[in-house]
C-alpha cells in the first residue's frame, strides 16, 4: 500500500459529497466521530471481543458509503466478512483491521 514519495496512502481521503451543501454538515459530523469508531474497533481487538468487532464493522460498512466514503465501507465489509470466516479469531483479521484503521486515519473534512 505504501511507497516513498507522495503515496496515495498518505493522501487525505475526502467525502464524495464534500461539495454537496445538503450533506456537508452531517459529513463533518461523521468525520469528527470517526476516531471514536476506530477507537472502539481497537478496544474490541484488545478485548478479543469478536462479536463487538463484527457489529462495529457491520455498522461502519452500512454508514460510511452514505457519507461519501465508499472505500471505508468496503474495507469494513471486508473485515466483517473475514470475521465470519475466521470463526471468532481476532488474530486472523488483524490485517483487515489495520487496513480499515489506516483508511480512517486519512479521512479529512476537506
Amino acid at each position: 500500500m505504501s511507497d516513498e514519495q507522495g503515496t496515495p496512502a498518505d493522501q487525505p481521503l475526502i467525502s464524495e459529497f464534500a461539495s454537496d451543501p445538503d450533506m456537508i454538515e452531517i459529513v463533518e459530523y461523521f468525520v469528527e466521530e470517526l476516531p471514536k469508531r476506530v477507537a472502539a474497533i481497537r478496544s474490541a481487538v484488545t478485548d478479543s471481543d469478536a462479536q463487538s468487532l463484527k457489529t462495529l464493522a457491520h455498522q461502519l460498512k452500512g454508514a460510511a458509503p452514505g457519507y461519501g466514503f465508499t472505500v471505508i465501507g468496503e474495507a469494513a465489509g471486508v473485515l466483517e466478512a473475514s470475521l465470519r470466516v475466521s470463526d471468532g479469531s481476532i488474530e486472523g483479521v488483524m490485517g483487515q483491521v489495520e487496513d480499515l484503521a489506516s483508511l480512517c486515519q486519512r479521512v479529512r473534512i476537506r
Partner: protein
Amino acid sequence: MTIGAAQPNDNVPIVLVIDDCVDVHRLLAARLRNEALELVCETSGEAGIERVHQIEPSLVLLDLDMPGMDGFEVLRRLKDETSTSDVPVIVLSGMQSPSDKVTAFDLGAVDYITKPFDLMELRVRIRSALKMRHLIQMLAQRAQIDGLTGLWNRAHFDERWADETKRAERSGSPLSLAVFDLDHFKQVNDTYGHPAGDTVLQGVARLIQNIARQADIACRYGGEEFAIIMPDTTPEHAINLCERIRVAIIEADWHGKPGQRITISAGVAGSTGQTSIGRAEWIEVADRNLYRSKSEGRNRASMTDVGSKGPRLADAG
C-alpha cells in the same frame, strides 16, 4: 362540517423511518430536507410498529437488516393488521441479494431503495410512493361520497356506524344517531319535476352539513333519507341539533323551485354512555321514532334514550 373532513388531507405527509442505524436517520434527514414531508425515525422493529399505530404515517421506509425483529417480520406484522395494512412500505436494503427484494415484495412492500442512497433515486421513489398513496386515498374517499349531495354515502355510514358503536362501547361515551326523511318528497318530485327534487336534496344536505358539527358524520342514507352519526353526543343534545335542522329547512326559501315549503321528520336514538343495545337494533329504534314523527303529523323529531332501562319516549317539534 363533515365534508371538510372528507377533503384530501393537504397536510405535510409523515414518513416513518425504521432503521437500527442512526446514520441512516441522519442521512435521510439531510437528503430529504427540501422535500415536502415530515420525517419521524425509530431504531427498532418493535418501536416502529408502535409508531405506525400512533402516527399513521403516509409512508414507511423500512430497513430489512435489523437486530431483534427484522424488517421482514415488521412488514409481515404491518400487513397482517387491518389498521396498518394499507400503509405503503418502501424497503431499505443494504443487501444486494435479489431474493430479499422479492421476499419484501411478496410481503407487500411497494418498492425498495438500495443503500447507500442515490439522492435522485431516493427522492423520486419517495415522491412516487406518496403520490400513489394520495391518489388511492382520494379514490377511496370519492367512493364513499354521495354524488348528488356531497354528503357521505350509505357505504360510509355502515362503516362509521360500526366503528362509532364499537368506540362508544369501549369508552362508555355518549353516542347518538339521527335519521331524517323529507316529508311528501314524492309529491314534490311529481309536481315540480325531478330537477326541483334534486335541488331540494342538495339544499337540505347543505343545511344539514352547515348545522352538523365537525365530529358529526352526515350521510345520505337513501333516496330522500339522511342520517347523522353524532359521537360524544347525548340524545338530548342530538334532538336539539335535529330541531335546528328541522327549523332551518322549513324556513328555507327555495326561490320557486319548488314553489312550496319543505319539511323534514326526524327520529333519534341515543345513549348517554351505558347501553346494551345492538347496533342494528339501535338503527331500528331511530327508524321507529322517525315513523312516529311521521304518524304524529310530520315536521317534527322524536327521540329515545337507548341508554336507560325501558325506552323513554320524548317529543319535540
